[in-house]
């Protein structure tokens, strides 16, 4: 006796920012199947022209992030049965970013904002200086540690309604990186960071809606980091630095 193969009803975004449509696929359902498995099945067995992005498949690289039934997720770490009990899946590229093709979002604006927020290390010493020990119990170090697990997957950026309404806003990931560096005793760019996050697209645009913290797969809290930046820039305002 044969058991009828259960099928998933999958709708996939096709096209670019200039024009798109949705294609439907019937995909065989399996136990412990991830959404990335579903996308890969479509590309390998139904339509080889489907474009998408992935690398590690174990939740370390962040490159497979997509919108799954309207929610930003790492597709490699999302089991189908957790998000589509009725067997229906809608898979789209990450929100708030241009689309290169199909499910591959253009990450350029995301990383441009990371740079604009001074999200890179500003060395305070040279390689010839002795290594300064870091006290892990120091309050600033503990605050910096809260954000270091960010892998730039842009889930928070796609989840952020402020980014959706205000495209110039730097977004949660870049601002969290700025906050991490601001609390890192090895970083020498504090004034520049405060300046970078105080401009017209800076941390003050955040409405504290909390989608970033809600959807971050690493359970980080960019909203807390942004609140910290607001505090520090406000302090600098009272010290007479009108643009932080």
């Amino acid at each position: 006796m044969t058991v009828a193969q259960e099928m998933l009803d999958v709708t996939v975004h096709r096209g670019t920012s200039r024009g798109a449509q949705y294609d439907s696929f019937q995909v065989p359902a399996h136990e412990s199947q991830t959404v990335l498995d579903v996308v890969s099945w479509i590309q390998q067995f139904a339509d080889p022209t489907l474009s998408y992005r992935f690398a590690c498949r174990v939740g370390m690289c962040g490159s497979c992030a997509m919108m799954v039934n309207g929610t930003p997720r790492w597709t490699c770490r999302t089991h189908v049965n957790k998000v589509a009990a009725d067997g229906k899946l809608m898979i789209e590229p990450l929100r708030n970013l241009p689309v290169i093709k199909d499910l591959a979002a253009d990450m350029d604006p995301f990383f441009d904002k990371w740079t604009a927020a001074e999200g890179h290390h500003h060395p305070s010493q040279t390689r010839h200086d002795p290594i300064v020990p870091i006290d892990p119990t120091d309050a600033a170090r503990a605050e910096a540690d809260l954000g270091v697990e960010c892998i730039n997957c842009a889930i928070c950026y796609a989840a952020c309604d402020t980014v959706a309404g205000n495209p110039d806003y730097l977004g949660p990931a870049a601002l969290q990186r700025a906050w991490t560096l601001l609390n890192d005793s090895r970083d020498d760019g504090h004034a520049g960071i405060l300046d970078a996050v105080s401009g017209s697209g800076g941390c003050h645009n955040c409405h504290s809606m909390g989608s970033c913290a809600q959807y971050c797969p690493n359970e980080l809290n960019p909203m807390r980091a942004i609140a910290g930046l607001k505090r520090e820039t406000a302090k600098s305002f009272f010290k007479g630095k009108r643009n932080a």
Partner: protein
Amino acid sequence: MLDLRLYMLQRLSALVMAPLVLGHLAVMIYAIQGGLSTAEILGRTQGSALWFAFYGLFVIAVSIHAAIGVRVIVHEWLALRGAALSLLTWGACAGLLFLGLSAVFAVTVQ
């Protein structure tokens, strides 16, 4: 769209407004007890430097606070930006100042 300066202006104006809102509500509740007439209210407010300062400051704080709030909403929901957004911000501030201060002058000065 909302830089540090505008953010601080909106927060500081809110700080000014908070006690004034409470004072305004208290006055409203007090004023309608026992059916105060318009003439009786005007009799107490006209020529009063205290009420002029109270509501004058209130109007200035509201005009700043609301204009920045409207700026944010219009930018995020209607995608207005650049010079048009600045014009709207200043226009909202000027309009609220004009209407509010007209009322303050009418009630406390004449």
